[in-house]
């Protein structure tokens, strides 16, 4: 019973963190390249919707996940086009993406899923032999493909950013695009690739939400997770592992507050639902504070002002 409780807690923490972490990783790619991405919420929703719709029609979760990946990437492409090519204000572009995605997914959702409850096939869990038998933490090795993929993505992103040439280019573009430009790197290309890749990842997070966690699509089901992902990203100082840990913190406190409620502790529930945000706030104040964004974050790059007063 006690073991079970812990295992459940761990599993719940993980499930609550996964969509956040996908979104945060997606945001990380975009923001490390210098493109602000407040549209994570809309991208999550897009991923959730397309994965559900594609699975609904094809009956195949793999198709659903791929669709979410593509749709997320497409929204990323739109964001990149707006921010990089047209130099639209990046904050506005993100907010607009949230609005459009919210409206369109609901609209299409009603067209596609009207009437019957959607019955989607489940994403099977893959047990990793031996490891899955470890008490309590064994639950980490009894997850579905998207969770393992996430672990891989976090590791790969870390490796990519700090140990590869394209990763170096990405960081340089986000910090000082003129420098990258004079070194022969295409700022535009790097930003496009980063934002689109980011979109794909966020789309995956949406797919997790719709296919794994809930198994159907509902309107507005991202419910603010995109914004929490942004908070995690900043909290984690735009570092993949830091951000993932920040997501875990949000997931863990959320899971905790739900358990406190479930145990019947006599605290008004509003104080419990605010717990994750409160904890994050306290953690920020308690010294984990300063985080410096990539220097060029939010600034469109224009070559004619290269090297000039940025």
């Amino acid at each position: 019973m006690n073991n079970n409780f812990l295992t459940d807690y761990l599993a719940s923490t993980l499930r609550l963190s996964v969509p956040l972490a996908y979104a945060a990783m997606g945001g990380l790619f975009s923001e490390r390249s210098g493109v602000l991405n407040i549209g994570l919420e809309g991208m999550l929703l897009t991923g959730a919707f397309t994965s559900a719709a594609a699975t609904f029609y094809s009956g195949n979760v793999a198709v659903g996940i791929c669709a979410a990946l593509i749709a997320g990437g497409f929204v990323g492409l739109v964001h990149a086009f707006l921010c990089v090519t047209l130099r639209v204000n990046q904050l506005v572009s993100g907010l607009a993406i949230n609005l459009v995605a919210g409206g369109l997914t609901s609209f299409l959702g009603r067209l596609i899923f009207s009437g019957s409850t959607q019955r989607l096939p489940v994403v099977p869990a893959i047990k990793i032999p031996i490891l899955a038998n470890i008490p309590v933490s064994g639950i980490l090795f009894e997850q579905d493909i998207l969770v393992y993929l996430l672990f891989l993505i976090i590791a790969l992103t870390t490796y990519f950013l700090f140990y590869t040439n394209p990763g170096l280019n990405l960081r340089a573009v986000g910090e000082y695009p003129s420098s990258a430009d004079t070194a022969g790197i295409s700022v535009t290309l790097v930003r496009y690739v980063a934002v689109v890749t980011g979109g794909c990842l966020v789309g995956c997070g949406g797919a997790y939400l719709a296919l794994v966690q809930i198994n159907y699509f509902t309107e507005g089901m991202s419910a603010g997770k995109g914004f929490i992902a942004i908070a995690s990203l900043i909290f984690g100082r735009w570092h993949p592992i830091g951000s993932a840990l920040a997501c875990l913190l949000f997931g863990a406190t959320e899971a905790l507050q739900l358990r406190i409620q479930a145990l019947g502790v006599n605290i008004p529930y509003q104080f419990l639902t605010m717990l994750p945000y409160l904890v994050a706030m306290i953690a920020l104040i308690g010294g984990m504070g300063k985080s410096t964004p990539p220097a060029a974050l939010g600034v469109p790059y224009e070559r004619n002002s290269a090297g000039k007063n940025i």
Partner: protein
Amino acid sequence: MNNNRIFPIISPIIAITSALIVGAILILIAGANPITAYTALFTESLSTYFGFGNTLTKMAPLLLTSTGVLLALKAGQFNIGGEGQIYFGALGSALVGLYVQAPGFIHVPLALLAGFIFGAVWGFIPGYLKAMRGINEVITTLLLNYIAIDLISYLVQNPLKEANAPSPYSPLIAKSAQLPIIIPGSLAHGGILLALIAVLIVYIVIKRSTLGYQITAVGLNQTASNYAGISVQPTIMLVMAASGGFAGLAGASEVMGLKYRLFEQVSPGYGFDAIAIAFLSRGSVLGLVLNSLFFGALRSGANVMQRSAGAPVTVIYAIQGLTVLFIAIALALEPKLRRDTT
């Protein structure tokens, strides 16, 4: 030369038209009539007596909050916390409206002041953390939104709840603390005037005052400001507090002018609309007024389109998003177009 005058008007019109065309397709798919819907949208929200009143009613909180966002922006701060500050402002004014007794000419300003101060407190916290501790204000303002919303939810459900109310809201605030209706018979209340006054004040402060100069200097270059003897940190804290204060006034005007009580969902996302408004206005105070009016019309038009044309709310949200997007694009392209034609 002529082009320079025409573009700022033409390009938003093209943008809005494009959004409406895309929207029309969606409305058609949904099985409603786009022409009826759009006729309703425009005639109602801008040209009829009550419709315009509704637009103004929506405009008030948007204008107040976006004024706050703009002010923070001038000092280089991103205030994403308008939402939470609105809730806190609403709380402040409701407390004064509920528990203080005074004649109207004192009660109204007092309640507004309380709204301002409560909002200011909620803006000051991230301001303090940013200025003194270097903690990114985007994340703190974002987190404080959630905390404020939960806190108000608790308060209206427990200590402040009206007895026997089926849903969490407070009792009515005193008559003396209510803002007057300015367009008789409609819902348009004194909060709109308040918003216009606030905008005017901010305009004067930014454009004409030494404080505005100081704020702008800090926003543009903290290092240089610091060397010139400007106290950068107090400026940031002050501006963030004031920014929160304006959002707080938005909450106060909703309580005192529209609902006459504190309720659970004070803001359905005004804080985020305000960010878009502030950015689309590109620092211009007049732009703030026009954009708030436009967003107000769009928001009240959303209800109208549903009511009289049966256009589904989902499409309306999509149209709103597309409009914001296309206007942003138009604004971004404007300098290019201008260059090409001259």
